[in-house]
């Protein structure tokens, strides 16, 4: 040991890394249609993974017998949960339909028409979501 104190960290004189990181995925500034599709796909993907675990938890209630399950069904039919069902359907439609776009565009099939494809699929999704919402609250 030389007895000297370790040098304090100093800024380097060379170029410094300046990456946007994963938070840049959700930066709305300057974002275009494909960028929104990218960001929404991540958000809905995380939501669907969370739902999967929630769903497994709900299925676990079946092992608790009829009383536990019936109590859950009463909660599941309440308006706030029905609204969450619609949110779930929205996420599934957006993620699934955008997945079709990513799959088709990703293999060069409609490489220059991805924006129009996204709009078209989202129109289909909106129609299905409307029908599903009416069905959920019927």
């Amino acid at each position, binding site marked *: 040991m030389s007895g000297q104190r370790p040098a304090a960290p*100093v*800024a*380097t*004189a*060379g*170029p*410094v*890394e*300046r*990456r*946007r*990181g*994963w938070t*840049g*995925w959700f*930066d709305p*500034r*300057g*974002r*275009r*249609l*494909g*960028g929104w*599709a*990218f*960001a929404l*796909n991540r958000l809905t993907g995380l939501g669907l993974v969370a739902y999967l675990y929630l769903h497994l938890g709900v299925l676990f209630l079946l092992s608790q017998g009829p009383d536990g399950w019936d109590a859950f069904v009463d909660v599941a039919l309440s308006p706030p949960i029905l609204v969450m069902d619609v949110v779930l359907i929205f996420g599934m439609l957006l993620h699934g339909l955008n997945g079709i*776009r*990513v799959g088709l*565009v*990703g*293999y*060069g099939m409609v*490489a*220059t028409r*991805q*924006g129009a494809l996204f709009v078209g699929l989202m129109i289909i999704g909106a129609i299905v979501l409307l029908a599903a919402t009416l069905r959920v609250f019927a």
Partner: protein
Amino acid sequence: MAEPQTTPTRPVRFRVHRRKAGDSGGRYDSFEVQLDEQRTVLDGLVAIRKEQDPSLTFRHSCFHASCGTCGMRVNGADVLACVTKVADLGPTVTVEPLANIPLVSDLVVDMGAFYGPFSRAGRPLLRESELVPGSQRAEGIDVLTRYEDCIECGICVSACPLTGSDPRYAGPAALCAAGRVIEEPRDADRLAALRFADGSHGVWRCHVAYECTGACPSNADPGAHIMRLRRAATADRFRRWFGVGRAAR
């Protein structure tokens, strides 16, 4: 004698990113500049450097979107400052360097880092000339050469969300260059360009946000090139795995 007409000006507030070599962090300095509605962000930066702060550093050259040197982020959008009018922006114009490329000073990024993957991609710079139908060649000009659509401004790299989170990703500019080699190899090594692109940090890392294509100021369309490369890479793998057809050359 009639008075010369003057274009009305308005005050524009610029928030400009500052960071010099050796600084431990960045900051934003504010400047107010009188500009008329035809003026661009680059005009504003030139005025700031000339009249208010000569230490402000940024790159520019042609002033008409040909050279690609004034790529920067303006109010969060990746643009060429020379063709971005202040009249189209709000009362405050925030100017930052391109993202995802190492910063040298203020608004200047290290284009050496940007060009790094280009050489591995084959880096074509010139393409066959395309004459406008009916146009005539100037006297004394026998052969026309034309630069690629890509002006190597770095805007696509800054706009790409994946380049921002994966430092190993080759990025849209280099992959676009590789795509041009595949399409029009001339004497370049087409197979090497394809193998460069066909990797987990090549074309398969792209997540189809198409921000590169949307931001590109010269319509080079890196996104479409990446997708066509995927198709070529898939075909090449099939040939290698199943011996169907000839390998890419």
